[in-house]
C-alpha cells in the first residue's frame, strides 16, 4: 500500500492543465449545487422515491472522472448523482429522471438509482449494493477483447466492499488482467453502521492484496489526490497491467437517505468533516496557484446555479410518462399486455 496523499494546501499546480483544473472545479460546484437543490426540492415533496445525497464527496467523483476519457466506462451506485454528473451526464435528462418525468434518462422508469448514459460510458447507477462492480469489470473485458485501450471504473461504497460480488469481481478481474479501476468510496458509513463496525481491515485498499493487485488509498476530499491516484491506475490498466483497487477516504455529510434522523453519529463528527469541505479547499488551491480568483469562483457558482435552475424548470415542465409506456422496454421485441 502506497500512501500518496499530499495535502492540497501544500500542492503545486505544476504539470496540470489549467483548463482541466477549472473544469474540475466547475464540476464539483455543479454537483454540490445540484445535490443541495435536490435536498431542498425533495423536502418539499417535489419528487418521488428516495434521495441519497453525495454532498461532501464531490472531490472523489470529480477527481476520478477527470482522469477518464469520454469513451471510458463507469458503473455507479445508489449514491450516484456525483458520478453521473462528473462523467458528463446531461443535467436536464438527469433532473427529469429524478423527477420521474418522460424526458428523463429512462423516461421515468429508473429514477435516481438507475441513471445511465451509454454514450458517455455510464453503465448505470445501481440500487443493489455492489451490483455494479462486476458490470464494470465485464465492460473492461469488452475493451480488452476489442483491443481498445478503454478502461472501466467501478464506484462503490465501504459497505459494498463486504458483499460477495466485490470479492468475486476483483479476483476475476485480476486473473484476467482487466483494465478496470475499482474505486471504493469509504465515506465512513454503510447505512447507519460505521466502517469500523462492519469490517476490521485498516484500509479497504489493503484488500487488493487478496487479489494480487495494487491497492492505494487517497484523501477523498482532495480532488487532486483522487485525480492522480486514478491516473496511475488508469495508466496501468491501459498498458495491460491489470486492475487496481483505490480507496477514497471521505465522508457522507448528510444522512444515508434524505430523512434519516441519524441517531448513530454526533453532529460534532459531522462538523469536523464539514470543515474539510473539498470545494473551498480546492478553490483555495486554485487561488494560491493563480488559476482562478475568488470572484471567478463565484461566477462559476452563479453559472452553475443558473444552469441548474433551467434543469429544474425543464424537469418540472416535463410531462409525466404515459402509464402504458410501462409496457415497453422489458424486451427488445415483446411489448407486454396492459389493462
Amino acid at each position: 500500500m502506497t500512501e500518496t496523499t499530499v495535502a492540497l494546501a501544500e500542492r503545486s499546480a505544476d504539470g496540470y492543465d489549467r483548463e482541466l483544473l477549472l473544469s474540475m472545479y466547475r464540476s464539483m460546484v455543479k454537483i454540490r449545487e445540484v445535490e443541495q437543490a435536490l435536498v431542498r426540492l425533495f423536502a418539499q415533496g417535489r419528487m418521488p422515491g428516495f434521495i441519497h445525497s453525495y454532498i461532501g464527496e464531490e472531490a472523489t467523483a470529480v477527481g476520478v472522472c477527470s482522469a477518464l476519457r469520454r469513451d471510458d466506462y463507469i458503473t455507479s451506485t445508489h449514491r450516484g448523482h456525483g458520478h453521473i454528473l462528473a462523467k458528463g451526464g446531461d443535467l436536464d435528462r438527469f433532473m427529469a429522471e429524478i423527477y420521474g418525468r418522460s424526458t428523463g434518462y429512462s423516461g421515468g422508469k429508473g429514477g435516481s438509482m438507475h441513471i445511465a448514459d451509454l454514450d458517455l460510458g455510464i453503465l448505470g447507477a445501481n440500487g443493489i449494493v455492489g451490483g455494479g462492480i462486476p458490470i464494470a469489470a465485464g465492460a473492461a473485458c469488452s475493451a480488452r477483447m476489442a483491443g481498445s485501450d478503454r478502461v472501466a471504473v467501478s464506484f462503490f461504497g465501504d459497505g459494498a466492499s463486504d458483499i460477495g460480488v466485490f470479492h468475486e469481481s476483483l479476483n476475476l478481474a485480476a486473473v484476467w488482467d482487466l483494465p478496470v479501476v475499482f474505486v471504493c468510496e469509504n465515506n465512513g458509513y454503510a447505512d447507519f453502521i460505521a466502517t469500523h463496525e462492519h469490517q476490521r481491515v485498516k484500509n479497504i485498499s489493503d484488500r487488493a492484496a487478496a487479489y494480487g493487485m495494487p491497492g492505494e488509498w487517497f484523501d477523498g476530499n482532495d480532488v487532486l489526490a483522487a485525480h492522480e491516484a486514478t491516473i496511475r491506475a488508469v495508466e496501468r490498466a491501459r498498458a495491460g497491467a491489470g486492475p487496481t483497487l483505490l480507496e477514497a477516504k471521505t465522508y457522507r455529510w448528510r444522512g444515508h437517505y434524505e430523512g434519516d434522523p441519524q441517531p448513530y453519529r454526533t453532529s460534532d463528527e459531522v462538523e469536523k468533516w464539514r470543515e474539510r469541505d473539498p470545494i473551498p479547499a480546492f478553490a483555495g488551491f486554485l487561488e494560491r496557484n493563480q488559476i482562478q480568483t475568488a470572484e471567478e469562483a463565484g461566477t462559476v457558482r452563479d453559472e452553475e446555479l443558473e444552469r441548474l435552475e433551467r434543469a429544474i424548470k425543464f424537469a418540472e415542465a416535463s410531462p409525466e410518462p404515459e402509464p402504458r409506456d410501462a409496457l415497453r422496454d422489458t424486451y427488445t421485441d415483446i411489448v407486454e399486455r396492459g389493462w
Partner: protein
Amino acid sequence: MPEMTYADAVAKGLSDAMRENDKVWVLGEDVSHGGAYGATQGLKDLFGGDRVRDTPISEAAIIGFSVGSAMTGWRPVAELMHMDFSACAMDQLVNQLAKMRYMMGGSTSLPATVRCGVGGWLNAAAQHSQSLEAWFTHIPGLKVAAAATPADVRAVLLAAIRDDDPVIVLESLSLYPEKGEVSDDPVAAPLGIADVKRPGDDLTILTWGGTVPRVLRAAETAAAHAVSAEVIDLLWLHPLDREAIVRSIEKTHRVLIVHQACERAGFGAEIAAFIAAEAFDLLDAPIRRVAGLNVPVPFAPALENYVLPGEERIARAIFEVAA
C-alpha cells in the same frame, strides 16, 4: 386493544418471541438501530447487543450464519431489508436452509425465520419493489407467510419463530406506517390457516400481503353495486389453506386471485392450478388473476400505479368475474 403501526407490530412480535424464548435472536443490516424501516425499533435496548446484531451488507452471510445458528440450538430471525436482496442470498436460502434437514435425513431441524420487506408503491423502482414469494413457495423445505395488518403480522411472526422449520415472512413495506389494533397477549397465527377478511357470496377473492387492503376497498366498491365478494387473506402460502379455498368456492363458484408480484409464474398461478385440478367441477367461470404486470416495477408513480394491481383494476375484475 392498543393501536400501533404495522412496523411497531413487527417489533412487538419480535419482542414477544424474544421474551418467551431466550434462544431467539435477531440479525440483519441496521437492526440494532431499528432497521431501515423501524421494524426492529427498541429491540436492542430490551435484549442487548448479543441478541440484536447488526451485520455488514452481506446477505449471503446473514442467511448462512442463520443456518449454522439454527442447526446448533438457536432461533435466528434474519432481516432482509428488501425482498429483492434475497437474490444475494439464494444459495443459502434455497440450497442450505431449505434442504439441510432433508439432506440429513431429518437429523436436524432449522427453526430460522427470514423476514423480508416486500413490494412496491414506494417509488423505489425495479430493484427495491419486488414480491418474490413464488420463488420460495417453489422450494420444498421452506414455509412462507405474509401479513397485511398489524395484528396479523405480529401473529404470523410469532408463529414463524415458534415453528421448527424455516419460515419466510413477507412484510409489506407499503403497509409499515398503517395502524391497527394489536392485542397485548402474544397470540400466534395457526399454521396454514387463512383468514376470511370479508364474507361474501358472489365470488371468492384470494389474496395476501400488500394487496389485501386494496382488495377490501375494491370489495366495498363492488358491494355498493350489489356484488358480494368474499375476501380471503391466505396468510400462509405454504402450507396453503386448501380447505378454506375450496369451502369458499363451494359457495361462490367464482374465483379471482389478486397479488402484487408479477402475474407470470406468480404464486397465484399455483392457486389457480390447484383449483383447476381439485375444484374444477365447482367453477362457473374462468379463474381470473389480477397481479403485477409482467414488467419490472418502474419508478415514476404514474407508471408504478399502472403496473401494480390497484383498487381500480381489482374492482373492474370483480365485476367481470361476478358477471
